[in-house]
């Protein structure tokens, strides 16, 4: 009997935990999309007002300490150690390697990849247009993610607990 109770407790805990994690992921994504927009905004300021070169600007941006800074940090490192031949290559590698560490999905990845295509290779106006375009797309993604979060967050949580209970009942 004791084993049964302990076992059901474990199953219940595990499933609620799973639900909790899935719910947290829902709120992580809009958060990261938001911070990514902030970083891009910073990038725009750096190149417009400080006319930093790309590596400098990326270094400064990545120092802001948010999770999504990892794209900028990785791209800057790839450029510095010469692994990537140019900025767009470095950015592409950084996005592909680091997207797994964030909560961003395939769609977000595509947006980031297309941002990299023009990175550093055009005049200031082109760069700014590129940044603005990406900002707009990210804002749309954020909105969608936010809606998703509202829908799913509580669902995942309760589903976790209820699913756990159901499993316990079936098993008992």
């Amino acid at each position: 009997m004791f084993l049964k109770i302990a076992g059901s407790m474990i199953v219940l805990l595990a499933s609620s935990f799973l639900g909790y994690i899935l719910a947290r992921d829902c709120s992580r994504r809009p958060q990261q999309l938001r911070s990514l927009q902030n970083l891009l905004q910073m990038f725009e300021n750096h190149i417009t007002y400080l006319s930093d070169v790309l590596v400098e600007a990326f270094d400064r941006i990545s120092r802001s300490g948010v999770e999504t800074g990892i794209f900028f940090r990785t791209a800057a490192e790839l450029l510095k150690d010469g692994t990537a031949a140019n900025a767009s290559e470095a950015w592409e590698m950084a996005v592909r390697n680091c997207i797994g560490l964030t909560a961003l999905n395939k769609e977000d990845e595509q947006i980031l990849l297309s941002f990299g295509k023009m990175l550093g290779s055009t005049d200031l106006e082109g760069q700014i247009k590129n940044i603005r375009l990406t900002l707009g797309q990210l804002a749309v993604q954020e909105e969608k993610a936010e809606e998703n979060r509202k829908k799913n967050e509580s669902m995942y949580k309760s589903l976790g607990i209820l699913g756990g209970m159901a499993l316990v009942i079936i098993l008992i």
Partner: protein
Amino acid sequence: MKENTDSKLSVRTTSNLRKDILPLISGRVAEAISGALIYGLEPLEEIRLRAGKPLVLQNWSREWFIGSDGLPSPKPAGSFIVTQEDIRTTLELMSENSVYAYQDEIRNGFITIRGGHRVGITGKVVLDGGSVRNIRDVSGLNIRISNQVLGCSSKVLKYLFRSSNDIYNTLIISPPQCGKTTILRDIARNVSNGVPELGFRGIKVAIVDERSEIAASVRGVPQNDVGLRTDVLDGCPKSIGMKMMIRSMSPKVIITDEIGNDGDREAVHSVLNAGVRIITTAHGYNISELKSRREVLMLMEDKVFERYIVLDDSEGPGTLSEVVDGTDMKVIWRADRSVS
């Protein structure tokens, strides 16, 4: 390294082609160049990249192409061809992947890279109300390798010094490609550091470097050695820059390149009125040819310059041709051409 003959000024050339330039050229092209360099083409003067055209290396004797076997060849047929992609990559590397940060320079048609080398740019010009806003679709690059020739002005220096801490107002006259700017740079360095052998103590020098050629600044920092008492105002129009320097840096001498635009005369006079000396240069083959240029002629009539130094390339760039006293137009020194 060239021999220091009687009137030849080249003494010690320093350039760092492999360290400064090759890493900034698209990999494929850089490999071809470094492969060909083994055959003793150095010192190179220019590397030319034109989209769809052969790669050209120019040294003091002639232009070279790179044959399909990787050897330098004097004939363009079947030689290494540069693509527009190579040029695009090269420009990205040269601008540190930040073409936008070099936009002001690209607008003027060239960028200066680390080591003081200048890269001329051609392509499709984007206009904005009559002025150039950008050059895009870059189709040609001309990498002019800056060979800093330390000591090249030593022949000239003794004609410049008035006393142990004063110099004459000087105009250097030379045809293009004859080492005008190279000599000016070396004069700046010597005047600023002082020349103990000639009993000259260093004085404060201000360089107004309108075209970033003298000091070759990259993001404000001079890449060439222009002396320890030297201040450089980079990319500033001469007429404005000279006045700014007088007010801000209290120099003893102002050095600037290629005088002769409208407004230069007035600026030169304001320099002299402030008790500051001037050393500058002008394009020309001899003194009489300069008289056809109004702004320079007026400066000559004003007796601004006390020394005229004429260069030519009869024995390689930077050959000293004659030195003339500007106050009475007497020749102080003239190259003896019967010997050469």
